[in-house]
């Protein structure tokens, strides 16, 4: 890439960024989403400190109780305050959701766009590799991870989850890239001597943004729920810590007996997803090259 090109991309990027910001400012739903998401996040990290209960403090004789003025969201089977447990669980779910999705996003987009752009034998090879990884027994991989790395840190969860979730992203991006590769303006850019990297970044990826953003917002809930499967296999957060995935999973079994154990974690989970979707939609409209030009 020449210096000139680099500057041009940087310029484009800032102007695109500025346009996007203007767009978002105009988009009411995206604003609501943003505020909602920030509120939930702050609540998760600050809330537990403000409550008089701790997430692990139990009262066996008290047991599962419906919401009351003492316990706003009721208590779980061990008499622990559900409000605090949901908030601390949110810390886990939000960080796992974001970090793992980010891993999946970076790997998937890079891999998919390269595969779709280069085409031919290399593309075939790359996509067959994706097929192969799809088929590998995920449970076995997780089990091996649990015994290989004895520290139960979150990094591992991100890796494990990112390692499966990037595949579909790669397929989607590769499909889009392939469709765009032969378009006139890409050819034109080639004629003008633009480098492959700049074509990918300037002409192809911006046109894939729609599906990328949508699939990213779809990946986050999938990842948050997958985390509960991993903790079942012994990877990830250990009790007394919890996460939204685990809480929802347990609550679902008691839906007709202790409904609050499902409803409250599900509300937090859903609100977060709605917020992210509004943001995603706003971002998508804002970054859309066709719209802004």
């Amino acid at each position, binding site marked *: 890439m020449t210096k000139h090109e680099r500057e041009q991309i940087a310029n484009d990027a800032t102007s695109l960024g500025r346009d996007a910001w203007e767009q978002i400012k105009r988009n009411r739903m995206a604003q609501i989403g943003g505020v909602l998401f920030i509120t939930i996040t702050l609540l998760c990290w600050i809330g537990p400190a403000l409550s008089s209960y701790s997430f692990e403090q139990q009262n066996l004789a008290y047991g599962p109780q419906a919401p009351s003025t003492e316990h706003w969201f009721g208590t779980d089977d061990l008499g622990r305050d559900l409000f605090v447990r949901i908030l601390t669980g949110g810390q886990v779910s939000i960080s796992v959701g974001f970090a793992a999705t980010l891993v999946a996003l970076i790997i998937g987009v890079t891999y998919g766009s390269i595969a779709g752009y280069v085409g031919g034998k290399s593309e075939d090879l790359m996509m067959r590799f994706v097929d192969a990884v799809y088929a590998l027994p995920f*449970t076995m991989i997780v089990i091996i991870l649990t015994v290989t790395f004895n520290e139960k840190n979150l990094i591992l969860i991100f890796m494990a989850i990112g390692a499966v979730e990037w595949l579909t992203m790669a397929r989607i991006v590769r499909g889009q890239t392939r*469709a765009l590769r032969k378009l006139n303006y890409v050819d034109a850019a080639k004629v003008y001597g633009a480098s492959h990297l700049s074509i990918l970044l300037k002409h192809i990826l911006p046109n894939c943004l729609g599906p990328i953003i949508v699939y990213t917002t779809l990946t986050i809930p999938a990842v948050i729920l997958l985390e509960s499967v991993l903790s079942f296999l012994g990877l990830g957060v250990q009790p007394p810590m919890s996460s939204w995935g685990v809480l929802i999973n347990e609550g*679902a079994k008691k839906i007709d007996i202790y409904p609050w154990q499902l409803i409250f974690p599900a509300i937090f989970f859903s609100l977060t997803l709605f917020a992210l979707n509004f943001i995603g939609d706003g971002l998508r409209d804002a970054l859309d090259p066709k719209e802004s030009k």
Partner: protein
Amino acid sequence: MFNLIARRLLQAIPTLWVVATATFLLLRLAPGGPFDDEKPLAPEIKEQIEAHYGLNLPLHEQYFAFLGNLLKGDFGPSYKYPGWDVQEIIAQAFPVSLELGLWGLLIALSVGIPIGTLAAIKHNTSTETGLMGFAMVGICLPSFVIGPILLLIFSLTLNWFNPLGWSYASDRVLPAVTLGLLYAAYIARLARSGMLDVLRHDYIRTARAKGLAERAVVIRHALRTALYPVVAYLGPAAAGLISGSFVVETIFFIPGLGPFFVNAALNRDYQMVMGTVLFYAVLIILFNLIVDIIQMWMNPRARHD
């Protein structure tokens, strides 16, 4: 087209080999063996059993023996269920999962695509907000939540359906809805996004300007391109749908393949893991090929040189 299919089928062989080899190694790396149990076997007995299955041989010999059997199409007996061959189990369970998966797919497509498309056409209206809100509900409620909720309403309270089993036509409804809803939500969101992209393209604007009725524009020109990401997503999704869902098949007690994928791994049933993994790999390869063909048809420009 014929070239593509031939080439991909040829590529399937090394792909499957890679999957088989990687799985073989993963299985031997995993802690615990197929014959470990609560009350541990006496070492002599364990040796006898392992000798029975050739597990006492050096690893490379086991590997070549395994490859040899694979070439003969023989996955051998399950370790967990010694009277049953892996092929037999798959042959018994797969048709059930296939049927359930196809119903689920039908629901996913027939709910997801109309919702997504309509939402895009009615962009920035309350119709869109309502439809996409509905789709979001599908995403927020995973099958282990939707299943029990549907059961509680339609089976335990209204008594419209049996709460478990796979004997009557009506037994298909709740599991298929549970399975299909999540996929419908995904498809709706991808379809809407694709549609919004396309509707902004110049050629659609031109078509509209030419005065064709809106619907005709949408259907003739837009839908094809708009569903591009949906189709890319559908390849692996369909393979996943028809190979069975652990959660749905467990909740509704359906004798499908889903639970075997998870349980085989948990039981360290090497043969069964290998059988299910390779079976799934074949489905993935097949569906991704179909998807690529459909994508070629949808966008001739993406055709290979």
